[in-house]
């Protein structure tokens, strides 16, 4: 379990995460939603030990992330950040290999190579394995990064806006992948999403943040109500039922 207990983070006078207590990491997919600046990425930063809390405690499987060796944590928790700009020219295979770093410290064993192959196959990247990352489309690149996270072979997977800059087809493709990672491989996925319809369609639980606080935490169906969404996003959102699924209409 990933648990945050009364965690607060301030940047100067601004409180970006305000006394948050929340638990993640049950089986399935959890979506983290909320307007820009709600503190979602900072929350991920706190769990991924990129950001130190000013107050409170973050634990993963009962141990404090501040006191766990970084390498040990990397074996149970993988984080995919929002923008993954790489200065060097890496191939897809090079990138996926990095996923094994917490286990092998760069000296790959046969076991590591199996994980790499499996991740590449799982994300359907065999044809691109020797391509350089800057020669790939956005969707392929995102898949390569997810393959790296998969090769890391962790129980918990945190994805920060994995659908950024992707078109409709690739968004659906990535979400389907995330779902199967949870269902087939038993990953406990937490993902930041901006499109609440994607969140409602593919996740088991939705946690909504606003102004650094968790304002709603329930099943997708319970969150997908006009009054809840209006409170989260501070704008009117209509919700209709289409083919038995709640769909939010927010196009103005």
């Amino acid at each position, binding site marked *: 379990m990933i648990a945050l207990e009364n965690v607060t983070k301030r940047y100067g006078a601004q409180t970006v995460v305000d006394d948050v207590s929340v638990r993640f990491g049950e089986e399935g997919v959890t979506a983290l939603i909320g307007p820009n600046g709600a503190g979602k990425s900072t929350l991920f930063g706190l769990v991924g030990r*990129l950001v130190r809390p000013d107050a409170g405690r973050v634990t993963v499987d009962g141990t404090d992330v501040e006191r766990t060796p970084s390498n040990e944590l990397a074996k149970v928790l993988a984080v995919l*950040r929002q923008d993954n700009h790489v200065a060097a020219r890496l191939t897809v295979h090079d990138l996926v290999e990095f996923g094994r770093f917490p286990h092998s410290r760069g000296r790959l064993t046969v076991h590591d190579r199996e994980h790499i192959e499996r991740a590449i196959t799982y994300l359907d990247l065999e044809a691109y394995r020797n391509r350089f990352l800057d020669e790939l489309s956005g969707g392929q690149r995102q898949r390569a990064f997810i393959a790296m996270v998969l090769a890391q072979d962790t129980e918990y997977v945190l994805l920060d806006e994995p659908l950024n800059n992707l078109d409709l087809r690739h968004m659906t493709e990535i979400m389907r992948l995330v779902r199967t990672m949870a269902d087939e491989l038993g990953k406990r996925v937490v993902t930041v999403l901006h499109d609440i319809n994607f969140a409602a369609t593919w996740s088991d639980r939705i946690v909504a943040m606003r102004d650094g606080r968790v304002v709603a935490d329930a099943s997708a169906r319970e969150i997908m109500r006009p009054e809840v969404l209006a409170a989260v996003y501070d704008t009117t959102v209509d919700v209709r039922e289409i083919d038995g699924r709640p769909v939010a209409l927010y196009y103005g």
Partner: protein
Amino acid sequence: MLTDPATTTSAPPATRRTRIATRWAQPGVRLAALGAAVLVLAAVYCCTDVPGSLAFALEIRSLSVLAMLVVAAAVGVSTVVFHTITQNRILTPSIMGFDAFYVLVSTVIVFSSGSASFLGFDQLTLWLVQVVVMVAFSVLLFTWLFGGRRRSIHLMLLVGIVLGTFFRSSTEWMQRMLDPLDFQVLSDAMFASLTRPDETLLLLTAVLVVLGCAAVVPLLRTLDVLTLGEPAAVGLGVDHRRVVMVLFASVSVMVAASTALVGPILFLGLVVANLAYSYAGSFRHVWTLPTAVLIGVICLLGGQLVLERVLGFGGTLSTVIDFAGGLFFLYLVLRKGAR
């Protein structure tokens, strides 16, 4: 579009040309070719154009070659490591004000006690003072801006730039007030020179550079992960702060030692590192670091040859390197812009 290596190898009739091409793609082969080039250049430098006794020429010149190797190692390794830490390939450690600080210390000595005593100074003392002061300066800057809670590399770079500018303008101010003769002596000493190094100093510098490299070697694979950037590296279990501390410490020791030996020469690092990235054929530091060092030796040897045999000592090595390096830097910037 680059050709896919997988398809190249699976192409049925492997012609001689493609076989050579695939073998050439191996970083090891490329590095070996570079090593051979260094040996040839070194032999040419040592054994040709000998005015008197060959043994004497060899003794003097092999010392110069050793100095070049030490300087190239210090400059090449520190620049590549610095690039990886800062995620920026058009910087050199000189942005932290290293060489500006070196020039400032020398200027202060000349300014306060005159060129006669500057020249009269014991070389070893001067070298030691320079090294200690430079390392102390960078460690202070580093622990202040990176060791604390703020932990920002960019802030550190920015403060480095500001301090570097401050050092340069203080230097300039003092140099304006200098006696022309003192100024002549000082500016002569501030051009990097690799011929006839002091043996003791060379040995001490070599020891420090070897120590610096020895600290980097266990972190080679970690450096590869650092190319992904701090967030990704932390996510992969790199203890970013500790690793960067170690790397930065070895960079400053190497840079300080080599600058104190031959003078400001960090610009070479920029050229050498960027050539190494495109030549090495791999992003891995196991390959890029030695490639950068060997390219550095080639630049220094080649520069020295041009200087001695073509220009007839009509200048200094740093002039040759700055001229060629400046052109290359412009090319780099323009190419980046064109992309």
